[in-house]
C-alpha cells in the first residue's frame, strides 16, 4: 500500500455565506431537510431489503467474492459504485448477519443510505447507530479514500473497532484506531487504514500537528514547489505526517461533537519559560488579596466575569504607585488583577482542579476525571497556581489553534448520527451544510415520561429524589440517576447510603469500567448514579425479568443547559421498544437557574416552583443556548477574521 498517493489533503473550506447568500443558503437547507428526503431513502432501503434473497443462499466464500467485486466497482469511483449501491448494501447486510449475528433492520439500511449521501441521520438511542455507521463506513472504505468515524471517547473508539472488526475483515476493508495515548507510529498506522475510528479531538490534534510539521508549506502549490526545490527536506517532512488527509467523516453523537464541544477551539501548546509572566502572576495574587468582593469588585456569575469597581481601581492605583513596569499602566494592571480575581472566584479547588503534590491538575467537571495534560490559557493557569502557592509552571504557549467549526468544514463529505438533532438542525446546516433526515424507529417507543418535579431549594429536591428512588427500588426496577457533576453524584450516593441503599457511582478513572457500570445498569434492583456525560454511547440492556417490572427508570436530578442533553439521558430508558420510564427534577437553586435567570424570576421560582418551574426552566435553557450559540459564532468569527487578515502567514 503506497502512502504517497494522498498525503494530507483536505478541502479548503469555503467562507460562510453572508447577507442575502445566507438567506438563500438557509432556504436551501430547509429544502434539503424536507420530509420527502426521508421517504425517498426509506423507499431505497426497502428496495435493498427486497434483494436480501439474492445473497441469503450464497456460501461465505461466494459472498466474499461478491463483496470484493463491489469493492472494485466502488474503488473505480463515480457512477459505477452508485449503480451497485443497493445490491452492495443488501450483501453487506447479509455479511453483518453472518459475522456479528446482527441483521440490520430496514431503518438501519435507511440510515446507511443517509450517511452515504452526506446527511445527518437522526436515530433514537439504541437503534443500532454503531452498526449503521459500520455499513456506511464499508461503502466509503472501499474507495480507499480516508474515512474517519468519530465517537465521543477513546473507550468507544476501541470497543467499536474491536466489535466490528469481523465485519470489516469479511468485507475486505482494513480498520484502524487512534486514541489519546498512542504514539505517532501507531497513529500513522491507525490513519493508514481504510476506516479509522477516533475522536474528534484526536483527529483535529493530528491534523494540526501535521500542518505544523509541514512548516509553512501547507498549501498544495507551496508543497509542490518545496518538494521540487528541496526534495530531501520535503520527503523528510512528509515522513513525519500522521494523516493521509481528510475526506469523509461519520460523526457519532454529532450534536455533542459538532455543537457542544465546538464552543472552544482546539489548541496545541508547548510550555515555554516566561519569568515575567510568572512574576506578575505572583504579584497580582498579592495585590488581589487586598481587594474585597462587593466593594472593590463585582462578580458576574452568569458570564463568569469579574469587574473592578471605581473603588477597586482607585485602591489598586494606590497600591501600585511605587511599582514599575507592567503595573504602571492601568489597563494592563487591571487585566492582571482581574485574572487573579477570576482564579479566586470561579476556580475552586476540588471542583475545577485538584492540587496533586505541587501541581495544579484540572478536573473534568462532568466526568470527574483528572486531566494532567491539560492547562488553562496563558496566565490563568499561573494565577491559579499562585493562588494555591505552588511553584508556577511554565506558561503554555499556543503553537497551533483551530476551531472545530472550521475543521469539520475541511471534509469533502461529512455525515453524522445523533439521537437528538432537531433543535440544532438549522445550525448544523448553516455551519456544516449537514442536512438532517429523521430515521423512523424500528419499534415504537413505549417509555413513560413522569411529570417533572420542581422545588424551591436543593435540599427539598434531593430528599424528593431519594424518596422516589427508595420507592421505585422497592419494586425491583433498576434506576439510573443522572447528575450534573461528580460532586452531585457523591452527594446523592451519600444520601442513599443513609437510607441503607447501595448505589454504584460512576467515578472511575478508567473509561472501560465506566462503560461496564453503565452497561450493567439494567440489572434488577440496581441503582446507578452517573454524570450526564458519563457512559455515552453505551447501551443499557435490561437484565432478566426487568422488562416485566417496568424496565429501567431514569431520573434526571438536575437540568442541563441544553435540553438535548436532558433528552439524551431520558433516552436511556425504553430503548428499542423496551418498557421504561423517566422523570426530571429541578430546583430554584440549580446552577442553570442561578446562572441564567434574573433575580426576579428566580424569586418567583422559589415562591411557587410548581407553577413557574416548567416555564422558567425552559427559559433558562433557551437563554443558555442563546449564549452558547453566540459563543460559537464568535469563535467562528474570530477564526474567519484571522484567516482573512493573517493570510500572509502560512498556517
Amino acid at each position, binding site marked *: 500500500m503506497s502512502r504517497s498517493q494522498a498525503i494530507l489533503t483536505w478541502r479548503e473550506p469555503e467562507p460562510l455565506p453572508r447577507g442575502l447568500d445566507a438567506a438563500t443558503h438557509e432556504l436551501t437547507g430547509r429544502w434539503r431537510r424536507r420530509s420527502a428526503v426521508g421517504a425517498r431513502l426509506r423507499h431505497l432501503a426497502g428496495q435493498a431489503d427486497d434483494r436480501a434473497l439474492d445473497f441469503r443462499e450464497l456460501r461465505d466464500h461466494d459472498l466474499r467474492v461478491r463483496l470484493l467485486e463491489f469493492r472494485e466497482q466502488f474503488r473505480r469511483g463515480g457512477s459505477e459504485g452508485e449503480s451497485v449501491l443497493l445490491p452492495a448494501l443488501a450483501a453487506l447486510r447479509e455479511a453483518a448477519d453472518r459475522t456479528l449475528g446482527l441483521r440490520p433492520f430496514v431503518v438501519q439500511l435507511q440510515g446507511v443510505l443517509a450517511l452515504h449521501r452526506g446527511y445527518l441521520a437522526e436515530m433514537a438511542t439504541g437503534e443500532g447507530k454503531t452498526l449503521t455507521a459500520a455499513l456506511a463506513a464499508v461503502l466509503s472504505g472501499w474507495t480507499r479514500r480516508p474515512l474517519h468515524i468519530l465517537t465521543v471517547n477513546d473507550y468507544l473508539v476501541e470497543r467499536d473497532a474491536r466489535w466490528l472488526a469481523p465485519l470489516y475483515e469479511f468485507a475486505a476493508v482494513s480498520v484502524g484506531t487512534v486514541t489519546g495515548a498512542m504514539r505517532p507510529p501507531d497513529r500513522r498506522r491507525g490513519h493508514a487504514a481504510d476506516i479509522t475510528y477516533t475522536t474528534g479531538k484526536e483527529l483535529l490534534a493530528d491534523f494540526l500537528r501535521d500542518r505544523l510539521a509541514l512548516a*509553512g508549506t501547507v*498549501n498544495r*502549490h*507551496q508543497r509542490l514547489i518545496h518538494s521540487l526545490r528541496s526534495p530531501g527536506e520535503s520527503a523528510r517532512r512528509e515522513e513525519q505526517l500522521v494523516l493521509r488527509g481528510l475526506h469523509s467523516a461519520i460523526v457519532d453523537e454529532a450534536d455533542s461533537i459538532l455543537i457542544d464541544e465546538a464552543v472552544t*477551539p482546539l*489548541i496545541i501548546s508547548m510550555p515555554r519559560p516566561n519569568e515575567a*509572566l510568572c512574576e506578575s502572576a505572583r504579584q497580582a495574587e498579592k495585590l488581589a488579596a487586598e481587594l474585597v468582593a462587593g466593594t472593590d469588585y463585582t462578580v*458576574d456569575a452568569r*458570564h463568569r466575569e469579574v469587574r473592578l469597581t471605581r473603588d477597586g481601581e482607585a485602591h489598586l492605583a494606590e497600591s501600585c504607585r511605587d511599582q*514599575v*513596569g*507592567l503595573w*504602571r*499602566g492601568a*489597563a*494592563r494592571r487591571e*487585566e*492582571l488583577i482581574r485574572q487573579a480575581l477570576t482564579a479566586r472566584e470561579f476556580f475552586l479547588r476540588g471542583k475545577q482542579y485538584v492540587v496533586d503534590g505541587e501541581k495544579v491538575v484540572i478536573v473534568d467537571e462532568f466526568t470527574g476525571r483528572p486531566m494532567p495534560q491539560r492547562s488553562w*490559557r*496563558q*496566565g490563568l493557569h499561573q494565577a491559579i497556581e499562585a493562588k494555591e502557592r505552588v511553584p508556577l509552571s511554565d506558561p503554555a*504557549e*499556543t*503553537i*497551533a*489553534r483551530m476551531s472545530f467549526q472550521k475543521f469539520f468544514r475541511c471534509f469533502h463529505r461529512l455525515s453524522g448520527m445523533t439521537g437528538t438533532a432537531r433543535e440544532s438542525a438549522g445550525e448544523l446546516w448553516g455551519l456544516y451544510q449537514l442536512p438532517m433526515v429523521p430515521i423512523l424507529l424500528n419499534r415504537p417507543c413505549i417509555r413513560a415520561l413522569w411529570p417533572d418535579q420542581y422545588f424551591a431549594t436543593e435540599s427539598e429536591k434531593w430528599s424528593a429524589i431519594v424518596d422516589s428512588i427508595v420507592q421505585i427500588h422497592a419494586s425491583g426496577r433498576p434506576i439510573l440517576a443522572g447528575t450534573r457533576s461528580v460532586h452531585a453524584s457523591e452527594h446523592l450516593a451519600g444520601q442513599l447510603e443513609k437510607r441503607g441503599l447501595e448505589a454504584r457511582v460512576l467515578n472511575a478513572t478508567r473509561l472501560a469500567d465506566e462503560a461496564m457500570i453503565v452497561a450493567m445498569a439494567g440489572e434488577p434492583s440496581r441503582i446507578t448514579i452517573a454524570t450526564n456525560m458519563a457512559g455515552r454511547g453505551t447501551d443499557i440492556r435490561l437484565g432478566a425479568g426487568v422488562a416485566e417490572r417496568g424496565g429501567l427508570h431514569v431520573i434526571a436530578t438536575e437540568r442541563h443547559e441544553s435540553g438535548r442533553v436532558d433528552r439524551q439521558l431520558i433516552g436511556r430508558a425504553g430503548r428499542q421498544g423496551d418498557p421504561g420510564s423517566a422523570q426530571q427534577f429541578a430546583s430554584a437553586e440549580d446552577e442553570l437557574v442561578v446562572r441564567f435567570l*434574573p433575580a426576579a424570576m428566580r424569586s418567583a421560582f422559589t415562591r411557587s416552583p410548581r407553577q413557574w418551574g416548567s416555564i422558567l426552566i425552559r427559559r433558562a435553557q433557551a437563554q443558555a443556548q442563546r*449564549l452558547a450559540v*453566540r459563543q460559537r459564532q*464568535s469563535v467562528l468569527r*474570530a477564526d474567519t*477574521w*484571522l484567516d*482573512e*487578515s*493573517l*493570510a*500572509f*502567514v*502560512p*498556517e
Partner: protein
Amino acid sequence: MEANSTFSESWHRVSGQHLALHPAVQVRRQMFRGERWYVLEHPFTNQFFRLRPVAYEFVARLHRDRTIDSVWRECLERFPAEAPGQEAVVRLLGQLYQANLLQYESATDTSALFQRHEKREQREFRARITNVMFFRIPLWDPDRFLVRSLGVIGWLFSPAGFLLWLAVIGLALKTVVDHWSAVRDQSQGILAPANLAWLYLAMVGLKTLHELGHGWLCRKYGGEVHTLGLMFMIFTPVPYVDVTSSWSFRSAWQRVLVGAGGMIVELFVAALATFIWARSGPGVVHSVAYNIMFIASVSTLVFNLNPLLRFDGYYILSDLCGLPNLGGRANQELRHLSEKHILGVRDSSSPARTGGEAAWLAGYGAVSGVYRVIVFAGVLFSVADRYMLLGVVMLAVCFVSWIVVPTGKFVTYLGSSPRLDRVRGRAIAVVATAVAALVLLLGVIPAPNHFQAPGIVEASQRSQVVCETAGKVLALSTLPGGLVRAGQPLLALTNRELSLELVSARAALAEVDARLHQALGEQAANYRPLEARRVALTNRLARLLSDQSAQIVTARHDGVWVVPASSELPGRWVARGTAVGWVINPGTHEFTATVSQADADRLFHSHWTRAGTPLPLDAAVSDLTARIRLRGEAGVVVPVRSIHIVPAERDTLPSAALGWQGGGELAPAKSDPHGLRSAESFFEVRADLPSDPGVRLVHGRSGRIRFDLPAEPYLQQWVRLFAQFLQRRYQL
C-alpha cells in the same frame, strides 16, 4: 477575547514571522488636537493608515531580520505600561495587511490574494450601488497634466498669487455692488428654460476647473492625484477628483488649502466672469458670464462651504479642528452616547479622546444628521416635481435605505448584537418603552387639532350707498363717519342737464296739453295720438322728477355713513349706479373667514350635513369651537357663538385686505389687477360675533379665526396633511 489583553491565543500565527512595512510606505507625523499621530501611506495603492504613537513605536521597529515576537518583547520592555498587547498587535498586523502596507517573506497563498482582491471589488461595487445618489465613474489620470500645468501657472499658488487673487476678487465684488440692480434682475431669469443649457455648460466647465484647483494644490504640496472622473450627483453628471493623498500632509493648513483649492479657483474664475459680464452687451457671452458668476457664488456658499454636507467645507472643517473622519466618528460618538446612556452598555467606548472632541463629534453628528435629512427631502421633492417617476423611484430607494434597512439593522442589533449581551433585557425594554410611548403619543392620545383662517369683520346689516342717478356731487349733506337715521340725506348731486331736461319736459307737456284742447274742437282725428304722447311725456317727467329727488341720496337704514374717499367726492361727477360709500349698522357684526380647501375638509368632515344653515357652536350641540383674534388686538379672544358655512367654493375675496396686495396672506390670481380674486378657491365661513366682544368691531377689520376641532392623534393629522400635500403637489 478582550481587545487589549496582553496574551493572545492567535499569537503563534504571527510571533515567528519576519514582517516589515512595505519599502514604499511613507510615514508622516501629524498633529490632531495637540496629539501626535502617524500616517502611513502607500503611494502605489493610495491606502492610508493612521496610528497612535504607541502603535507606531511597534510598527517602526518591524524589520525583516526580526521576528514579531522579539519586536513585541522589546516594546514591552521599553514601554511596559503603554505597549500594545498581543491581541492588539495581531489586530494591527491584520489591518496593515488588509491595507496592503506590509511586506512579508513568504510567497502568500496566491489564491488568497485573488480572493482578497475579489472581495474588495465586491465591497466597492456594493458601496457604489448603495450610494447610487453619488455614483462615480473614474475617467482620467490627471497627474501628468497637473505637473506640467503647474509649471505654467504654479506661480499663482504663492503669496504673490494670493495677493493678486485678493485684488481680483475685491475688484469683482466692487463691480457686483456697482451693478447690483442688474445682477438682481438677471437672477430672476436664471432658471428660465432657454438659459438651462448655458447654465449646465457653465457649471460643467466651472466644476472641472474647481476639481483641477484641488488637484493643483494637492500636487503643489507633493500629493499625487490619479483620478479625475464623473460623479452622478443625483443623476446629474459633475466632475470629481481624488485628492486623498493630501491626507498624509503633515501640515493641517496644507490640507485645508487643498480642500479650499476648488473654491479658490472657482471664485477667481467667477471674478473674471464678472468683469466680462459687466463689459459686455446682451448676448451669449454676457449670459454665460452671468451664469458663471451665479454658479460660482451660489454653489460655493451653499454647497462647497457648508460643512454639513460631504463637500469641501466638511474636509476643511475636519482639518481645521483636527478631527479626521469627522462624519464617521460623529456617528460612532452618537452611537456610543445612546448605547451608554440609553441602552446601558457599560463598556461602550467613545471614539473621542477628550471631552471637547466628544462634544464636537456629538454636536456635528446631530446637526449634520438633521440637515442631511432636510436636504435630501428637498432634493427628493424637487426631483419629483419635474419627473414624477424618477421621484417615486428615488423615494422608494430612500425609503428602503433610510427606513427599512436601518430598522432591520437596529432590530438585529437589538436582538443579537454581542455588544448588548449583558444589557439586552434593559435595552429592549428601553426601546420598546420608547416606541410604545411614541405610538401612544402620536397614534393614540388625541392631540389638539385646530387650524386658522384669515378673515375680516363685516357688519351684518350694511348697505352700499349707490347714486341712482348721474350727477356732480354738490356736497356731502352729512359728514362721513357720522351716525345717520333712515331717510336722512347723505349727499346732494347736481345735474344741469337733468334740470334742463326737466324744463324741456315740462314745456313739452304744456304744449301737448294745449294741442289736446285744440284737437277737442277742430281735429278730432288728432286726439288719440296726442293722448298717447301726453302719457309718454308724463312718464318721462315722472322719471325725471324721481331722478331729481334721487339727487338727494339718503340712508336706507340707521347706521354709520362711511365714505372711503370722502375728500375726493365733492365736485366729482358720478355715473348712475356708482357706489360712493356704505351705511353700516354698527350694532351687529359677523366675521367672514376664508377657509382653505385643505382645512375645509376637516371642518366639513364632521359638520357637512349642517352646512348651509347656521351652526351653533354650543358644547351641547357641537364639539367644534372657534375663536377670533383681530389684528392689532390679538390679546383679546373673541368667542364665536355660531358659524355659517357657505357650501360652495368661491374665489372672490370678501375684502382686498385678505390678498397679498392688501397685506393679507392669500395668494391672488395673477389675472386680477385688483387683488380681489384668490389664486386658489376657498370656502367662506361666516361667524356671528357677540354683541359685547371686548374689542372694537369695525367693518373691514381683519383678523384670524381659529377652529378647534375634536382632538385627534397627531399621526392621523400628519397622514392627512401628507396626503393633501401629495395631492396638491402631484395630483395623486
